[in-house]
Every structure is written in structure tokens, then in C-alpha cells.
């Protein structure tokens, strides 16, 4: 795997790609940034140089769906008491996709469980987020010829940007630096989807422990979301659908 990029290991973001600065728990609607967790999860779940998937399609969908909910949780739009998704702030998000997702959630009169929304959002999450990344110029759509006809694939336009989430997570964990709210969610999703053994290649045991510790210290709604994601992935493996 060509994860060549460790140039940004000091934690500074490259100028291109991370169009939202790292959002702490304090990120509020007044800051013109949006925590694009789903973008970074998409990057982690695909190979940086050719966009090949590293994770099962169904599990990728669940992880991306969870990441979309996580964006709204980080931006303090949602609360997840007892596994139910509740909107606490209906202020329209500045990101178009997040706006659509929040609208979809708001259209339900009764609160639905996290698991229901994960399953619902997972159906289209991969396409939605690929579109968002394509619009932002991070992905380019190519049509490859596969064994069973044509296959649309999204190839990163810049390998360094694509490898950045992996490089950032690994280097922080290696140095024992604390993860911020954004990276805690991202790392938690990597754990919940079993992607960590691919992402944290080589020294996974130590890094996994660090990641688990960080995820265990996360605020309640994040832990709730991660637990439901892990359960959804586990059930997807058991029922194999």
C-alpha cells in the first residue's frame, strides 16, 4: 500500500484538501467550517493512489452513514439519548450534504433509533460522499473495465490529501499525542468497522490500544454512535447480507 506520506506528521494540515479545519467540541455555527468526518472516512476506506476500496461495500456504507451522523453530532445539531436520534438544533449546516441529511432527519415526526438511520443512510452514503468530494475537487470519476462490465471508480486527485487522514491518525497515535474531537470520532469509526488493521498497518496492537482509550473517553453521544456502528457492523457480518 502506497501510504508514502508522513510529511505532515506535526499535525498541521496541508493547504489543500482539509477544507475544514479540525473542529473541536467547541465548533459552533458561527465558524465557517464544517467537520467533514465522512470525507476523511471515505479517504481511509479507499486506497490513496487509485481509489480501490479497502473495506467491504456494505460496511463502508455503515461507516460513512455513521460519519454523516457524527458530523451533525460534532456540530451539536443532534443528541442520541438512549440510541434515539434527536435534533437539538435545526440551524441549517453550511455543508450541502449535511443540510440534506438534517432535513431528512427533521422530516420524521417520531425519533428513530440510530440503527435505523445507519441502515437508511448507508444505502446512499457512498455515492453522496463521493459526490461531495468530487464537487470539492478531491476525487475524479473514472470508468474502469472490470470482470463484470464497467465499474465507476473515484480516484483521488491528490494522493497526499487522500493519505492525510491516515498519516495524521497514525503519527499522533505513535507519538502518544491526544486526539481531538474530530480524530477521536474518525478513529472510533475505524475501530468500529474493523478498518484499523488495514489503516494502522504494522504496529496495530499498540495503536489500537491508544485508539480504544481515546474512543472510550469521548463524550456520551459519540460513544453511543460508535457503539451502534460497531453493533451494526457485527450484525452485518453475522447475517452476511
Amino acid at each position, binding site marked *: 500500500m502506497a501510504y508514502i506520506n508522513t510529511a505532515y506528521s506535526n499535525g498541521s494540515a496541508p493547504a489543500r484538501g482539509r477544507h475544514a479545519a479540525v473542529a473541536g467540541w467547541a465548533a459552533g455555527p458561527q465558524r465557517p467550517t464544517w467537520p467533514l468526518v465522512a470525507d476523511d472516512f471515505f479517504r481511509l476506506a479507499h486506497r490513496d493512489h487509485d481509489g480501490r476500496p479497502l473495506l467491504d461495500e456494505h460496511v463502508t456504507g455503515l461507516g460513512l452513514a455513521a460519519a454523516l451522523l457524527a458530523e451533525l453530532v460534532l456540530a451539536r445539531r443532534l443528541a442520541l439519548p438512549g440510541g434515539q436520534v434527536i435534533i437539538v438544533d435545526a440551524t441549517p449546516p453550511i455543508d450541502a450534504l449535511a443540510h440534506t441529511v438534517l432535513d431528512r432527519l427533521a422530516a420524521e415526526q417520531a425519533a428513530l433509533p440510530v440503527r435505523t438511520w445507519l441502515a437508511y443512510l448507508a444505502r446512499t452514503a457512498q455515492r453522496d460522499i463521493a459526490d461531495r468530494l468530487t464537487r470539492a475537487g478531491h476525487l475524479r470519476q473514472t470508468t474502469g473495465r472490470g470482470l463484470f462490465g464497467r465499474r465507476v471508480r473515484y480516484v483521488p486527485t491528490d494522493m497526499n490529501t487522500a493519505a492525510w487522514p491516515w498519516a495524521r491518525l497514525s503519527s499522533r497515535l505513535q507519538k502518544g499525542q491526544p486526539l481531538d474531537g474530530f480524530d477521536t470520532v474518525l478513529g472510533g469509526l475505524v475501530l468500529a468497522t474493523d478498518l484499523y488493521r488495514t489503516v494502522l498497518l504494522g504496529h496495530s496492537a499498540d495503536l489500537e490500544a491508544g485508539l480504544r482509550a481515546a474512543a472510550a473517553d469521548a463524550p456520551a453521544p459519540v460513544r453511543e454512535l460508535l457503539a*451502534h456502528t460497531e453493533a451494526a457492523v457485527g450484525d452485518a457480518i453475522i447475517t452476511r447480507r
Partner: protein
Amino acid sequence: MPAQHSADTVSSTLARSRLGVWPLVFTVMAAAAPLTVVAGGATTGFAVTGITGIPIAYVLVALLLALFSVGYVAMSRRVLNAGAFYTYITHGMGKPAGIGAAFVALLAYNTMQIGLYGGFGAVLAQFLDTRAGLHLPWWLCAYAAWVIVGLLGVRRIDLNSRILATLLIAEIAVAVIFAAVHVTHPAPGGISFATLAPSNVLTAGIGAALAVAIAGFVGFEGTAVFSEESKDPHTTVARATYLALTIIGLLYAFCAWAMSVATGPAHIVDQARAQGTELIFTLVAPYLGQTVVDLGHLLFVTSLFAALLAFHNTAARYFFALGREGVLPAILGRTSPRSRAPLTGSLVQTGLAAIVLAVYAIAGWDPIVRLFFWLTVLGGLGVLVLMTATSMAVAVYFTAPGNRDHLGAGRTLLASFTAAVGLALVVIVTLDEFAILLGVDPTSSLRWQLPATYAVAAAAGIVWALILKTIRPQAYAAIGRGANSATIDLRPPTRGGR
């Protein structure tokens, strides 16, 4: 009301991608493997046990399992978990009992799966020998299947559901056609219903016949695993369970009876002993073309293969769920990220099968009687014990009026209690007649050694649960939640969006 409308949209959108009744029926019937049971299980059952009442045993077992299913299906509406048996036992009888049951299930499904290799190897070897002139040892054919099952398991490639459905329908069609030929060409003396007579129940050896029958049904219990993945958990699982039971129950009883008509009830045991798994084919060969008989053989082989894969996946899933819960080493909870396969669980199952096959090949034991029949019947006994414990657990669970809610005591308490008593009786007679079931000397120590493995597994599970309580209280607290170990697992009694 637009909001009401969109609430319907979320659940109906999700329902569209979920399992309906028929796909669920086909999924579980692949594990039950109709042609394997009719051509392999029933004939070997006649031969080994020497009992003519096998057909009525299939009817009795189908009825008993229908009773069992009433409580089982009711439970699947309450407890949201893909672990089924041991989850329910945990809820009804506590965590140590749940882990005991999980260990019994691991042993039973692995035994069942490995036993099927004997059938596959022997049947394929014989077919290649007679039709292609290839003299291959049975274990080579078994290992060929082992390689493919191992690869498919690790890569999480399931047989395509359409292929599976097509094969199943073809299997059933062949079994019914063969049975029709049997019935229309009875032995001298005409059509006899002796093997279906209820009086068989009172004969010695009925326990052995019931155990043979139970082994044929194993796999149908898989419906509850998919309760969350079904279109409507309130009706889909129930309908699929009863449909699968009815189809396979009628099919087994009819086909086994038809064979006894063709040979005459007095000769079915001798004929089965002389011809083994070939009996069903040799009885129709004079009346049907060679092509149909060949097709029957091929479907017999594919049926065995589908069952091998289905039970491999079941065993791997059990390893995975227990690894995920922290009951067994966490490495068993590992998946293959790229393929969503329970990687370690699958590899462990494959490894176990390799060892047992090697032992049989080196010792030169008979693949049909000692591997296929003994181990699948032993696996069936394990599942029978689990079903008995599950019925008791369901009855205990529904004793609490809060758990019953609107389901009614008849459907929950009464049915599961009656099923528990009935199944327990079957366990007792089966154990009493285990020597007949194995076809060994009545004083052979195998008659208690083989069933005792389950007692050991259950005891080991209970002890391990108590150890976990002290050394890893967190893992102990999560017991019975399977993949959901991180979250609450009770389905709210109201109709949610799921």
C-alpha cells in the same frame, strides 16, 4: 400528515432491501439440505438403526418442532439478536447457562459440518467411480470440498441466492419424482402404510429414529438469526419458520415412506444395509432414464455442498459472536475488512475439519457410517439439547408478564413449556437408545462417550462464565449480546422504524 408519510418512507425504503419470506425459507433450507436427508440421512438411518419407523419419526419431529417454533418465534420478536439460541438461553436462564449453551452450539454445529464431509466425500467418490471410472479415495473428494468451503468462507462468498433457490427446487423436484416412482412401483404386497403407523412410536428404538429425524431438520432454526434483517420481524420469521418446517417435514416423511413402499416395509432395513446411500437411486433406476438418475446424484452432491457451506458459516458466526463478546479470545471476533468475513472464526472451523478428516483418513474409518451418520446425528443431538434448553428459557422468560406484553400466555408460556417437556422426553429416549442409534453393541462405551462431549462442553461453558465474572466483569456483563455487546439489545415492544 406529511411527517407520518415520511415515517412510512424510511421503514418501507429499508424493508425493500430486506429478506422476504421465501428468500429466508431458501436460506435455511440450504442448511437442512433436503436431498441429503432423503437420500443420505433416511437410508443410513434405516440401515444403522434397523428401525422401520423412520418416516413416522419425521412427522412426529416436525410437529414437535412446530410447537417449539411458537415460543422460539415469539422470542425473536422480543430479543433483538442474531445469536438466537444462546442469546435466548442467556435471557431466560442466566449468563452461565448461556455460555454453556454457546459451547454446546459450537460443538454441535462443528460436528454437523465435519460429518457432512464424510457424506460428500463418499458419495462423490462413488459417483466418479461408477460413472467416470475414476478411482479416488473418499477423503480426497472430501478435502477438495474442504478447500473450496475454506476459500468461500474466508472470502465471504455465498452461493448466489438464485442459484441456491434453483438447486433447492431441483432437489425437491427430484426427491418428489423419485418418491412418486417408488410409490407407483410398490414391492409385492402393494402399498403399505406400516412405516407411517403411529404404533411405531411405542416400539423399541423410536428414540434412535427420532434422533435421525431431528438431524434432518437442523438448519431450520436459522430463521430467527435473520429477524432483524427481515422485512417485518413480526410476521416474516414466523411464516418462514413454519413454511420451512412444513415443506421439509412433509418431504422427508413422504420420501422415506415411499422408499419403504418400494422395498416393502419388511425389506427396507436389509436393502438400506446392502445399498447404502445408493438405495433411493437403484430403486428408481429401472423406471427412469440414466440421465435423471445422474442428475439426482449430482443434486445429491450439490445439496451436500450447500449444507457444508451453510454449517461452516454457522460455526464461523458462532466463533465470531463469542470473540466479539469477549467470551472467547478477541482474535475470533476479527473480520476480513475487504470481504466482511468472520475471518478467524472461518479459519478455525476449516482447521478443525482438516484435523478430523485426517484422523478418519488415517484410521481408515467408514466415511458414511462413522463420519457422516455418527457425526451428523451427534450434531443433531446437540441441537436437540439446545432446542430443549431454549424452550425452557423461553418459558421462563415469558413467565414475567412484562415480557409477554400483548403476546398472550398460550402462544408464549404454554407452547414453549409443552415443547420443552416433549423435547426433553426425546432427549431421554435418544440417550437411552444411543447404542441402537450408532448401530453398536449395547454395551459399547461409545453410547455414553459421544453424548458426554456435550455435558463436558456445557460444564466448561458454565465454569468459564463464572471465571469471566471474576477476571473480566465487563465481558461477563455483555454475555448474550453477540455483535450488539456494546449496546442495549432489547427490542422495544412498540413498532419502531426497524
